[in-house]
C-alpha cells in the first residue's frame, strides 16, 4: 500500500509544473491547459487526503472542482475566441491593451 504522502508529493509536483506552465508559456490556450493541470493536482490531493481520513467529502469536492473546471474551460476558451477575433493572436504578451 502506498503511503499517502507519496500522493501528496506527486500532487505538489504536478501543481508546480502547472504553475511553471502558466509562467513560462505565452500561448493563452496552453496557459489554460496548465490551469487544468493545477486543478487536477489539487483534485489528487483531495482524494488522497479524503481516503486517509476516511471521509467522502474529498470526493464530493473533487466532483465540484471538475464541474468548475468544465465551466472555466468553456468560458476561458470563449474569451480566447473573442480576443482572437479582435487581435488575431493568442500570445499573452501581445494582449497588452489593458496594461498600464
Amino acid at each position, binding site marked *: 500500500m502506498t503511503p499517502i504522502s507519496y500522493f501528496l508529493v506527486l500532487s505538489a509536483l504536478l501543481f508546480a509544473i502547472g504553475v511553471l506552465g502558466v509562467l513560462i508559456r505565452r500561448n493563452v490556450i496552453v496557459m489554460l491547459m496548465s490551469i487544468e493541470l493545477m486543478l487536477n493536482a489539487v483534485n489528487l490531493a483531495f482524494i488522497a*487526503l479524503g481516503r486517509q481520513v476516511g471521509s467522502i467529502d*474529498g470526493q464530493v469536492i473533487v466532483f465540484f472542482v471538475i464541474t468548475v473546471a468544465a465551466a472555466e474551460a468553456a468560458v476561458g476558451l470563449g474569451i480566447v475566441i473573442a480576443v482572437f477575433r479582435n487581435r488575431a493572436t493568442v500570445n499573452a504578451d501581445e494582449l497588452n491593451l489593458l496594461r498600464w
Partner: protein
Amino acid sequence: MSLGLFFFLAVLAALSALGVIAQRNPVHCLLALAVNLLDIGVMFVGLGAVTVGFLQIIIYVGAIMVLFLFVIWLLNLQAEGFSGYLGLKLFGAIGAAALAAEFATLFLHTSRISTPGASALTQGTITTLGRHLFSDYLVAFEITSLLLLAAVVGAIGLARRPPLSAGLSAAAGSDLATAESPRQMSRSMSVSAEQQTTTPRAGSA
C-alpha cells in the same frame, strides 16, 4: 494501490505534465494533457474514488479535451517559437521549483493525519457519493447547476459573433465566418476547415 503501480503512474503523470508545458505544438500539448488526465483518473480509481475517477475520464477526456482541440483548430494555431522574457521564465522556473519543494516538505510530514476510515475502499461508490451530494452538499450542488448554466450562456455570448446588422463591417475582415442559420453554418464550417492548413510537421521543425 500497490507501490509499483503508483510509481508507474506517477512517472507517467510527471512526464506528461512536463509534455504539456514543454512542447511547442498546442495539439501535442493537448494530447499530453489528455494522458495526464487519464493517468490521474486511474489514480482516483486506485484510491477508491471509482465514480469520480470515471467522471473525470468522461468529462475531461470526452468533453474538455475536444473543446480545446476544436478551439485550437478554429484558431489554426501553429507551433510557436520562443517568445517572452527569459528573466521571467527563469524566475518562474525557480519559483515553481521552490513551490514544489515547499509543498513536498510540508506533505512529507503528514503522517500525523493517519486515521483511515473503516470502509474507506467502498466509499467511492455512486450510492454514497449521491447520498452526500443530495444531503450535506445540496445547496452547493444546486449552485453548481446555476454555475454551469451561467457558463453555457457566457461562453455562447462571448464566442458568438455580433448580429449581422450590428457588426457586419467589423466581421467582414475576419475569416472566422459563422452565420446565423445552421445550414449556412455547416457550409462555413466546412469552408473554414478547408482553409485551415494545419501542418504538424512545423511542430518538429
